[in-house]
């Protein structure tokens, strides 16, 4: 073996080592967000808040950028919308939020994605001229985020309406109802 051959082998090994992250898919394209290994629960809660704030602002472009093209949005009444339908509803004012907040978030991070779930308060804007207070819904919402080369994208958002709290007069202790499907 000559010195030149040794140098070629060293270059080949260096090239292979450099390519390992590319093959493992853990690098993120320029302009993307943090790689999964460094994404914390707080990062994901912040990402969720960004999505909610953009939705309240009616920022269709911002919301679109955070949603996967095949995303499913399931509302508290069980209605399912595609990404295009959700954005259209926002753009036409059919869906106009005045509040979209997440409380007590739980984050499950998995290889390639994460779930952010918690208690969600949503309020809809009252129609123009209406003096009625905004309708507030209390739900349990789960958002599934997946990591794409271009950044994190929402692939599923599902809300389930929580039962209304009992009226004050009926606030006496009652047996805990069993969890139901």
């Amino acid at each position, binding site marked *: 073996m000559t010195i030149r*051959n040794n140098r070629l082998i060293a270059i080949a090994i260096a090239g292979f080592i450099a390519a390992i992250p590319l093959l493992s898919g853990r690098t993120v394209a320029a302009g993307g967000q943090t790689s999964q290994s460094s994404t914390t629960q707080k990062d994901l809660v912040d990402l969720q808040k960004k999505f909610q704030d953009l939705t309240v602002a009616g920022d269709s472009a911002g919301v679109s950028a955070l949603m996967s093209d095949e995303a499913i949005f*399931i509302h508290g009444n069980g209605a399912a919308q595609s990404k295009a339908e959700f954005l259209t509803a926002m753009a036409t004012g059919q869906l106009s939020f005045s509040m979209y907040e997440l409380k007590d978030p739980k984050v499950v991070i998995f290889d390639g994605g994460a779930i952010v779930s918690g208690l969600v308060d949503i309020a809809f804007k009252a129609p123009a001229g209406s003096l009625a207070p905004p309708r507030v819904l209390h739900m349990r919402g789960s958002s599934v985020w997946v990591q794409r080369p271009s950044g994190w994208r929402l692939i599923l958002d599902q809300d389930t309406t929580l039962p209304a709290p009992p009226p004050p007069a009926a606030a006496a202790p009652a047996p805990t109802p069993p969890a139901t499907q």
Partner: protein
Amino acid sequence: MTNRSRLIGAGVIAAVMLFAAANARRLSAQNGAATGPKMTEAQMLDLQKQFEDASIAADAAKVSALMSDDAMFVHGSGALQTKAEYINSLTTGQLKVSTYQMNDGKVVFFDGGAVVSGPTDIGLVLPGGAPPRMLHLRVSTVWLAKPTGWQVVLNQGTPIAGPPPAPAH
């Protein structure tokens, strides 16, 4: 051919293979295709049915094998259960399921997993021999391809408002 030529040739081939593999993975991720164990939509729907049937049978071992340890189960009431709580409610009879059937399920694959979602009929057995309470929910189940097999990491149901659609004739 000299040793040097052989080395250069091998290096070029290795570089081309690395580039092709990296590109294939990137394109696959962009298309949202699973790069783990390959599954078809039909296989995912079959997996979903296995989970539903195991829940009806209160088969704790089967349900456990199909759920990730950190799974979240959100019922139509909004109640949240862990894997242990869900299995416990099945085995103690607190939750007795007589029907659990997804209709017209849709599958969305992502890198390393899939979402299975669709209208779902669920029958709950009530005490005292009363007829089961039928619920019509939209259920979404998030499945992950783990080294030990596909497992549920999230199952969430949302009641569908209004009467169920009349059966097609």
